[in-house]
């Protein structure tokens, strides 16, 4: 299965996700929405597995490949979180964002060669990157929750902070695992666990922003709750810079972490 086959999996998966995202709001749409969402995830998973087998290496190296995982994880995490918390918007928003990332891969496919440079040939490679992408999906879902809440004039949605805080704790757990595995890998590959390479600096910034959110939430009070909610979209912008934006920064020219 090569990148040329992608469109035959991408279109049905997107159709399923968008179908699930809309039928969920119908009176008796819950069951078909569940099945459509799962079907979309399954179609997408089949492509990833086939693509992995074709490449003979994990498809985690290029930006396009990480976006593939992001669509997969975000739709899966969105579905599981929807089953747990029963917010229909959680399902539809994760379906929309997963679709956007599929569209990005269709519009701007990147070269997907089989070669993997020696520094990337490590047992840390797969857990490091999947941990990060999984965490981005969790933190993305939490950000959606925060934005919905910030635009809700009638006060807090019931249980909204339980949902957001849990997503942040789980997402932060994966974020730190990704970062710390990266540090151990850097020690084995480059001789030092932390070199303040631009990608590392931005990973530090992102992690610090989410630790700040977690600590702000330890105190009760409307002021700190509002501040905490505003912190999440800001932290997510920092996360996006870390993930997608670093290579465009003048500070990152000459970084060994840019791909």
């Amino acid at each position, binding site marked *: 299965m*090569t990148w040329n086959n992608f469109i035959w999996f991408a279109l049905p998966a997107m159709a399923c996700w968008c179908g699930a995202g809309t039928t969920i709001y119908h009176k008796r749409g819950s069951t078909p929405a569940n099945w459509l969402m799962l079907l979309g995830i399954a179609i997408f998973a089949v492509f990833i597995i086939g693509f992995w087998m074709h490449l003979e290496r994990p498809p985690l190296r290029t930006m396009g490949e990480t976006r593939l995982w992001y669509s997969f994880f975000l739709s899966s995490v969105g579905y599981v979180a929807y089953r747990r918390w029963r917010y229909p918007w959680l399902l539809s928003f994760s379906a929309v964002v997963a679709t956007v990332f599929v569209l990005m891969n269709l519009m701007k496919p990147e070269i997907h060669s089989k070669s993997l440079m020696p520094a990337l040939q490590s047992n840390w490679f797969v857990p490091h990157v999947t941990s990060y992408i999984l965490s981005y999906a969790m933190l993305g879902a939490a950000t959606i929750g925060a934005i919905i809440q910030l635009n809700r004039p009638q006060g807090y949605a019931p249980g909204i902070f339980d949902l957001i805080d*849990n997503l942040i704790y789980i997402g932060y757990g994966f974020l730190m*695992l990704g970062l710390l595995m990266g540090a151990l890998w850097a020690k*084995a590959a480059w001789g030092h666990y932390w070199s303040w390479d631009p990608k590392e600096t931005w990973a530090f910034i992102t992690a610090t922003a989410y630790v700040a959110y977690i600590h702000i939430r330890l*105190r009760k009070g409307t002021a700190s709750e509002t501040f905490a909610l505003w912190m999440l979209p800001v932290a997510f912008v920092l996360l996006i810079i870390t993930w997608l934006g670093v290579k465009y*920064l003048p500070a990152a020219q000459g970084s060994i972490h840019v791909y």
Partner: protein
Amino acid sequence: MTSINKRKFWQSPWGYPESIAVTAGIIAIGIILQLTVGSFNFYLLAFPSNLIIAGLLTAACVTMGFKAPNNHWVRWLSGVSMAVSLLMGLLILGIIMGFTPQQADETATNSKPGFDIMTRSWPFVLIYSLTLLSLGTLNARRLIAFRWRDYAFYLNHIGLWLLLMASGLGYADMERYVMYVREGETEWRVYDDENNIRELPLAIELKDFDMDVYPPRLAIIDRHNGQVLPFENPQFFAIDTDTPTGVLAGWTIQLEQYIHQAVRNSDSTYREVPMPGASPAVLVRAYNDSLLRKGWVCAGNQTQMVMTLSLDDHHSLVMTTAEPRSFESDIVVYTKDGKQKSALLRVNHPVSVGAWTIYQYGYDNNAGRLSAFSSFELVYDPWLMPVIAGIIMMMLGSVCMLWIGRKVKTTKHDLE
């Protein structure tokens, strides 16, 4: 809690306003120091100063946390409002650092407030130090009131403290050198990052260097200027026997035979010979609406000529230089006390000898597989153990967080 609303600024017990003011004040003092005395000299922290500072810091944290865990100053220093203020301080300094190209050179700076040497600038060093003091005191306070159910807290907070303390203070003791060894020779001299030669208490013998490459890519170039077609969006075709057909700039390319280690025959064909001077070669058919060409293409190397396939008067099919798949050095390490250690050194697979770690670093890029030397990076880091301990504790703490999520707490005490 209601008393907080009534109290005035700077009136105890302190909370957010004072924590933010103190953090901002310390950053301001840092900037003034940076402007007047210049950047912080990390090598002042070299052994034994860093060990003494680590001892004093631990003593201060333990004294405050154990002797006066409920004193309102100690609670403020190690409390949530201080933690959030310090995190915001680190966040702002981090963002400035993220947008400012950093100077690799230890002494050079083009920015008066030191934003281009952030980790060696006074504001960063001061906030980092205060974070260590605050976090260390919190750890001591929570340890004196030890509870098993706080295991995730201990793993995350003590782990982070160990990591920040040992990596910050240990930086001055770290030594990194590069050693170049020719095949068959033994070397003990190394270069530091300013290209000064030093002699080390260990020597490395290079018995053999070998590398493997990926199948290269094909491209069509304009013979006059060497540019890859199409000019605006150069295309490459990765040689892969699973997908033998592709399109390059209007030409269909068909792979007929690929030899990974090929040597040229006298009639300009190729045969397989596994030896260091061999190079990948491919037999291809290339055709468009009017022309069909067939022939061998080879990127060549120091011992073999390049072979291209002429398509028409202006264009040729060429092979790119292959990317390395792996390279490895068969070495023996000798130490001063007469120990020997044989190892096969590869990227991602370093070897440790005492407090030294040896890494495969590079080779002669122009010669590739024919490289007559291999280079190694030698790293000495006596503070590595507490750093690794901190990383492992935080990894376990992260697993706890993603497993448990956030427990809704109803406790009234103010220990967090």
